[in-house]
Each structure stands twice: as C-alpha cells, then as structure tokens.
C-alpha cells in the first residue's frame, strides 16, 4: 500500500481524534481493508491510542482487518430478510464460491460478508455487491449475479 494515499486521507485531519471513524472509512474504501501499518500511522497522526483504533476497527462490521476480495458480496441476515429467505441465499453463495461468510476465495475475487441489517427491510432479502443494493433476491438471481461477476469459474462449478 502506498503511504502517499494514506497521507492524503489524513491531510487536514491530523491531531483530530474525533475524525477517527471518517479516516477508517476512507482507508477501508481505498485499500479494501485496514492494515496494521495503517492503524499505526493513524494512531500517530490523529493522536489516538493504538488499542482504541484496534477496538473501533474490530467493533464495526464495516471495517475489515483482513484483505478483502475484489468483489464483496454482503448478505443481509436481519429479521425481515431472514423471514423472506436469507438462508437459502447464504447457502447458495457459500456453496457456489466454496467459502464461509467472512472469508475470501483463494483467487482473491470474492468475499462473502454476513451483516445483520442493511436498512432496506421492505425490499428484502437484500444482497449488496460492492455497495450496490440488489432487492428481492432469490438463489437463482444471486447465482446469475455471481456468475456475471466471474463467468469462467462459475461455469465450471455450476450444475444447472
């Protein structure tokens, strides 16, 4: 990761501890995850103890401490989505990609995330792909979505 980018994120926010979450959001967005080195730099520049940053970064689902895949598939498993069938969706994604929620595929293309609510309960079940919301999902739609993101691999593993 380039120090210049982190520098530009921190620009104008130095020594302002209350900017911590904003900075972490930007780092997450630009690097895909929050690395140890990034946390140490942020700790120095914002004047926030390292343990506090680690605590915040590990507390929120929005932040990842491990590198994430190119495509992040986020499944909502909140109450409304659960009732409308989030479980088959999760099964579809895990079996199609062969990884568990929170893990990244070997080729680094996909990460499956499980969250408790995405705030769009009326349109459930919701799946987001790199931040784009897909409403009223079904296992079939999800299969096509994942396929469209990575056609070659899914053709080999798809059985129908």
């Amino acid at each position: 990761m380039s120090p210049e980018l982190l520098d530009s994120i921190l620009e104008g926010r130095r020594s302002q501890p209350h900017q911590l979450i904003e900075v972490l959001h930007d780092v997450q967005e630009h690097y895909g995850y929050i690395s140890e080195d990034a946390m140490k730099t942020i700790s120095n520049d914002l004047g926030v103890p390292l343990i506090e940053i680690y605590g915040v970064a590990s507390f929120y689902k929005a932040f990842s401490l491990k590198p994430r895949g190119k495509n992040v598939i986020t499944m909502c498993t909140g109450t409304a989505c659960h009732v409308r069938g989030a479980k088959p969706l999760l099964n579809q994604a895990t079996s199609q990609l062969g990884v568990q929620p929170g893990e990244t595929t070997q080729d680094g293309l996909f990460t499956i995330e499980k969250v408790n609510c995405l705030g769009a309960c009326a349109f459930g079940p919701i799946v987001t792909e790199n931040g784009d919301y897909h409403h009223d999902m079904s296992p079939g739609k999800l299969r096509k979505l994942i396929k469209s993101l990575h056609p070659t691999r899914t053709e080999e593993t798809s059985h129908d």
Partner: protein
Amino acid sequence: MLQYVNMKIDGGDFRATKGSSVLDVAIEYGICIPHLCHVPNLSEIGACRLCIVEHVVNGRSKVTTSCTLLVKEGMVIRSNTEKIKKLRRNIAELLVAQAPNSRAIQDIAVRCGVKEVRYPFRNENCVLCGRCVRVCSELFGAKAIGFVGRGKDRRVEPPFGVLSDLCKHCGTCIDLCPMTFNPCEGYMKSGEEHLCGKCESQMLLADNLPESCVWCELGEGFQCSRY
C-alpha cells in the same frame, strides 16, 4: 469546599459528598452492595451489574447500577428489596456459569444467595469486568490492552493480539483480575464445574443483617472495597 447532599438508602438518612456515586456512599457508610467491577479511583463502567439498586423517582422505582448513579439531593435508594435480591442472584448465577474457576466469583455467588446454577457452564477465563483495561489506561496511561470485538466475540486483547512495548509489565492488570484465584478446591476441569458454596457459613451473620457490611471474608478474592 466540599458540597454535600442528603439522601436516603434503605430508609436511613445519609449525607454524601456531591459527585460521588451511590455505591461509594454505601461503602463509606458500611452498607453492603455486592460489586465486582468497581475499583476505587477508576472510572465506573457498570459492567458486572452486580451493584444494582432501586432508585425511587416519583413513587416509581427504576433498577440501575449504583456505581454509575451519582448522588442527588433528596434521592431515595433501596438496595436490598426482594426484587433486587432476585435480580442480583440471577446475575451472580450467570457470572458463575461464565467463569466458575474463580474464587472471587464463587464467593460473590454465595454472597448473592445463589443455591444452584441453572445455566450451562462455559468455563471462560474472563468475565469482561474491564478492571485490567481501566487500570492500564487510566492509572498508568499505558493503554496496552483494551476491549476488542463485540457481542459474544468481545474480549480483552493488546493491539493485534501481540503484547507491544506499550506494556511496561507492571502486573497491575493481573493483581486486579478476579480470575487469578482458583477456587479453594483447585481448578475445575470442563465437565466438573459446580457451584462451590463451601463458604455459606460466612452468610450466617450476613443473612440476619442483609443491608450492612458484616466484614465477611467473601470479598477477599476481588479486593472488596472494605479491604
């Protein structure tokens, strides 16, 4: 100059220093409110919930932790009603199910009147009281450990799980930890955890004087504030 307020605890009138918590006042006047996460001179986080009391406002009572409740003029507190005793017993039961391998927690369970544990034993080695975290960050300013994760994954850890140079190995976190004393009979392996309850004789006097500190020995394991 110190400012004082007048308040009632269990019907008795007390004069308390403004700015102190209800638990501080109770300890000062020898009223026994069981507590675990409270350490003098550290901030209160109300983590263990053992020090719950009833706070009566306009004739209606609210249950809240006395360590985070600051004294106010004309405040009415009930620390030992049937409702509180029942709630406190349940909290102590949950604590002992979480971490049976601690003399401090076994003792607290006896003090709160736990007779049986209805929950499955987890045998964890932490109850997340936060004593170590607070003493590290507040008293020493080292900030070498802290709470990480959330919900059922919450735990105490140094940054990235590796002890860094921030830790000066002062050992105060270990001194304050309620988990460092094993029960008198030794470590309970998983599968053979049980409520110890051997110290129930300590309760002979306490049962008759439920609201006052009778200098029982049950607080030794966690530095009960009378020591």
